[in-house]
């Protein structure tokens, strides 16, 4: 029979997921199967998406879940619909918080990405020869999203162990996950600590860090005094690198949507068509991209 | 023995002392009239009686017992029922549901729908009110709605019933139904408090009378027979009014307004007539005769099916009030609450809304001229208000009506004035002012169409009367042929073949 695979993602508007879908489609074209792409922003939508896939005769699906605790429900639903299940990006956990190891997963831990960010910042501080005592850190936070917390915590842990003074890390909670919200929150922090000369910034994604960078510009902090490192590496970051003069947006940690999209789709296809079960756990890694090497990094990751 | 007693009732609103120390008594089984100029405090007194508003001071006693109402419900349980001046019906519910609202016959919260409709149907039949009990109130004309309100009072076993201007939207025939109901209630010993601006009715119905003026008791007549019209008027207004109508001969010019074959969704038979410069044409008919529909079609408030309306030979485009105004026609609508007052806005704005275009260059207002305009009409029509900035919703019913009239009477360059029930709820004192304005406008060459359900008014001020009945013109009578009986006969639907007139 024709192979039909579902690909459910939690935030269809995010470029990252657009890319995952694009690469999944690429795999589908090569192997001649169909990918049904569904966005499901919350637990309830996930449930109906799985039902929907079952109803249209799909044989399996890949999911990046809106919340890892949805694990048991997703597994049960998949079984009820006799669908094979794989996860991408975020790994499902059980009620007690342990990963569901039976479900094949491809991803990267949020903490790890955060640590890469933290490391990049620390390295650059040293390179620029700043004294950490004189540096402020804007932690653009969005605590209602667990992944966001994990990422930011990852970055902070590296900063701390490198000797960054904890009291210099200031919280800028964004009310929404867009750049404007981050910009407004960060502006307040920068103005509150008007005496701090050097700044670093990190957050959930590129948009968050961009907000902090825009804030630094609007209060007149020179780009050379700011190190912002984002996560994602899609257009928002690229636009920044393309600007004629360097900005405070120093770099971004790119993770590869190609592997996550293409390989997961292929693995699922093999599982369904050839009964070849995928590896239980595949971890990919994030790579730091800077203004001068982002094109190369992207190429290495197989994007574009 | 005094059954109902008001003792030293006072009630103030910001800027207005609506009632000051009002005391009087009413005997058991009496119909007691309550009169006074617009804004004198009649409705306020009734609202206090109904438990809707608490008095600042004073007591009400029923059957010697002091009444302490925390809500309308309490008053209701004490046997006090009030029919308010503004219709208080829920348009989305049926007639039967409206009549039972607040006390549905129910078991465990579940309504007996059948019983509901049936009891109402038989009751309405019994008291002679011709409305379908399962119709939505939204589909009824104002007059019919008023009858439904009245049925509310009659259906309950009340000890005290207050009626606040119940006949203002009724024509003589429906009024008669009401009067016979009142006679019946009176015979049962019910005390009735009756507010009206119509002296005829007061003398026809009431045993005793109280006159309010500026919130104070102006006069109390335990026996109505011991007083006269003239005396009451001067107690109300503080001056004599000899001739309310004041009609006088005017020269008539060419035809101004020409209506040919006008028809619409609710007015199926085409209507044609014309009005000359300086002429006041009266329209009379019973409730639902179609006069208001005709006026709305004329003005373009509703979409026409057919017909042509011309002013000085120029066609008025249909379905567009703004175009009508630009062509020189205005309509003062019959339903002030839904079509007239603009809630939340001041008297001043309510008056200026249409005519301000004449003195607002490039759309920029002239506050000074708006204020002057408002002040002029507040004075001329004797609007009782602390300030022209007052929100119109805070005015008494009659005063609201005056403001709406002011809106249209202040228009400039108007050739045709259509005015539907102009003096509904307006006191005697102001009535003659309004008629004077109409005569003045007519003398200036305006063609005026007046719709009224009050036969004396139509006969008093019109140069000619068209009688409508069931959506058709039943008669067209010139002033020299005015005759109360003939006009009424023409208005009745069950008359024998036309031709008596």
């Amino acid at each position, binding site marked *: 029979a024709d192979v039909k695979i579902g690909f459910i993602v939690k935030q*269809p508007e995010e470029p990252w997921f657009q890319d995952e879908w694009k690469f999944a489609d690429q795999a589908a074209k090569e192997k001649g199967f169909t990918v049904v792409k569904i966005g499901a922003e919350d637990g309830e939508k996930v449930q109906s998406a799985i039902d929907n896939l079952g*109803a249209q005769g799909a044989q399996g699906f890949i999911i990046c879940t809106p919340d890892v*605790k*949805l694990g*048991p*429900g997703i597994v049960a639903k998949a079984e009820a619909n006799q669908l094979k299940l794989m996860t991408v990006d975020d790994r499902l956990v059980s009620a007690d918080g342990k990963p569901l190891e039976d479900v094949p997963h491809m991803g990267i831990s949020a903490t790890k990405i955060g640590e890469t960010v933290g490391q990049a910042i620390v390295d650059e501080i040293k390179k620029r020869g700043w004294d950490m005592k004189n540096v402020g850190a804007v932690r653009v936070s969005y605590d209602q999203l667990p992944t966001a917390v994990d990422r930011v915590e990852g970055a902070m842990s590296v900063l701390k162990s490198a000797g960054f003074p904890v009291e210099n890390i200031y919280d800028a909670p964004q009310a929404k996950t867009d750049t404007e919200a981050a910009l407004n929150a960060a502006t307040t922090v920068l103005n509150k600590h008007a005496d701090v000369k050097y700044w670093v910034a990190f957050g959930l994604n590129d948009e968050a860090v961009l907000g902090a960078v825009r804030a630094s510009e609007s209060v007149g902090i020179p780009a050379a005094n700011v190190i912002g490192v984002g996560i994602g590496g899609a257009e928002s970051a690229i636009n920044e690198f393309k600007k004629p003069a360097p900005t405070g947006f120093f770099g971004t940690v790119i993770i590869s949507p190609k592997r996550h999209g293409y390989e997961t789709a292929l693995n699922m296809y093999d599982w369904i068509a050839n009964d070849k079960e995928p590896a239980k756990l595949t971890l990919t890694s994030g790579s730091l991209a800077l203004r001068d090497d982002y094109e190369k990094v992207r190429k290495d990751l197989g994007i574009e | 023995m005094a059954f109902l007693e008001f003792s030293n009732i006072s009630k103030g609103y910001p800027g207005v002392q609506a009632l000051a120390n009002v005391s009087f008594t009413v005997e058991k089984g009496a119909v007691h009239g309550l009169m006074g100029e617009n804004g004198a405090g009649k409705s306020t007194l009734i609202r206090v009686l109904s438990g809707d508003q608490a008095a600042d001071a004073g007591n009400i006693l029923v059957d010697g017992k002091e009444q302490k109402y925390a809500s309308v419900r309490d008053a209701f349980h004490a046997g006090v029922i009030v029919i308010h001046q503004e219709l*208080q019906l*829920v*348009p989305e519910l049926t007639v039967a549901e409206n009549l039972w609202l607040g006390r549905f016959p129910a078991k465990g919260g579940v*309504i007996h729908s059948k019983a509901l409709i049936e009891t109402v149907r038989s009751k309405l039949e019994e008291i002679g009110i011709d409305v379908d009990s399962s119709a939505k109130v939204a589909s009824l004309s104002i007059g019919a709605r008023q009858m439904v309100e009245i049925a509310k009072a009659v259906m309950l076993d009340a000890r005290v019933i207050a009626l606040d201007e119940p006949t203002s939207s009724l024509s003589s025939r429906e009024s008669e139904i009401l009067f016979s109901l009142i006679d019946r209630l009176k015979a049962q010993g019910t005390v009735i408090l009756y507010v009206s601006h119509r002296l005829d009715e007061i003398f026809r119905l009431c045993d005793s009378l109280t006159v309010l003026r500026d919130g104070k008791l102006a006069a109390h007549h335990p026996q109505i027979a011991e007083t006269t019209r003239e005396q009451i008027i001067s107690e109300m207004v503080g001056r004599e009014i000899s001739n309310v109508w004041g009609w006088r001969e005017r020269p008539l010019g060419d035809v101004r307004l020409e209506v040919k074959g006008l028809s619409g969704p609710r007015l199926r038979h085409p209507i044609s007539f014309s009005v000359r410069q300086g002429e006041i044409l009266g329209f009379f008919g019973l409730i639902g005769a179609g006069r208001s529909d005709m006026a709305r079609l004329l003005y373009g408030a509703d979409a026409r099916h057919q017909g042509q309306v011309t002013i000085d030979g120029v066609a008025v485009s249909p379905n567009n009030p703004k175009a009508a105004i630009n062509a020189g026609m205005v309509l003062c609508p019959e339903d002030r609450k839904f079509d007239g007052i603009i809630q939340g806005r001041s008297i001043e704005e309510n008056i200026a809304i249409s005519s301000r275009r004449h003195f607002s260059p490039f759309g920029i207002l002239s506050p000074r001229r708006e204020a002057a305009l408002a002040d002029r009409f507040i004075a001329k029509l004797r609007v009782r208000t602390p300030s022209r900035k007052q929100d119109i919703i805070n005015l008494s019913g009659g005063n609201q009506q005056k403001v709406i009239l002011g809106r249209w009477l202040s228009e400039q360059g108007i050739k045709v004035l259509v005015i539907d029930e102009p003096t509904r709820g307006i006191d005697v004192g102001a009535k003659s002012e309004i008629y004077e304005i109409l005569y003045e406008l007519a003398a200036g060459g305006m063609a005026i169409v007046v719709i009224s359900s009050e036969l004396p008014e139509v006969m008093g001020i019109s140069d000619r009367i068209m009688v409508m009945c069931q959506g058709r013109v039943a008669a067209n009578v010139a002033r020299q042929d005015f005759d109360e009986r003939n006009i009424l006969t023409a208005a009745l639907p069950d008359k024998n073949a036309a031709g008596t007139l």
Partner: protein
Amino acid sequence: MNSLKKILLGEQGLVVIFAAAFVIVSLFVPNFLTERNMLGLLQSVVTIGIVACTMMFCLASRDFDLSVGSIVAFSGMIAVMVSNATGSIPVGLLAALLCGAVVGFVNGIVIARFRINALITTLATMQIVRGLALIASDGRAVGINDPDFYQLALSRFLTVPTPIWIMLILFILFGFVLNRTVFGKNTLAIGGNPEASRLAGVNVVNMRVWIFALQGLVCGIAGILLASRITSGQPNAATGLELSVISACVLGGVSLAGGRAAMSGVIVGVLIMGIAENVMNLLNIQAFYQYVVRGLILLIAVLLDNLRSSAAGRRG
């Protein structure tokens, strides 16, 4: 011809139009009219459907409730957390229902007694309650300890899952309450003319408080079922629910100006929303185009309904 027009334009016009649309979709969309898909479809509208029952009352009485999504999430969390803490599912469920009702009651008190604008009040409680849910769970989903909790959503009766039965029962119940009880008529009266209702002796303040409390309680039911379906209490669940529910109601002919409502219309409104999502996914319509299509469907549905009612020639 004329009688066809009558049916289309009558009171039940939307239902008829909907039925026609349903037939067309069934014919042209593969996999749509299968038992599996129908059940999946119905399950996907359980939350909206349940909450719409009481939202209908809320709107019919001229009120407005934006806090429903937060209450659903919050009471779901409570159900799970209390069940986990006490080890007793019934206690957890009771706690959730109580919490929902209490939040609704507070809404009602603030709105009706203190006469605060309903939009602002429920916008405020929407944030407060969401904040409480986040604080209680530290922003993370709470897993369910006792697998019996899942049975609420998984169990079936006559092959139909329990949540669907509950939704159907609530449809019938609230349809009855609206049309046949004093409570329902008073609700419509308050919405149609609050002043007249008050003067007729209806206790408008109490009625409004009750309606909000009921709304909260029903959100509690929806929250429990949702938590059971997604096997966890999620502080971020059901965001944006308020707009979906209000749209479903308005689509179904409930007037935002109060006084007009019908259960059949609301059911149709709910189904239209569910079918639109379902069909778009069955047809594999791209995410961004789904936005556009969703908007167009909303527009077309009200446009049709409007043609109908304006042809029926109501004034105002």
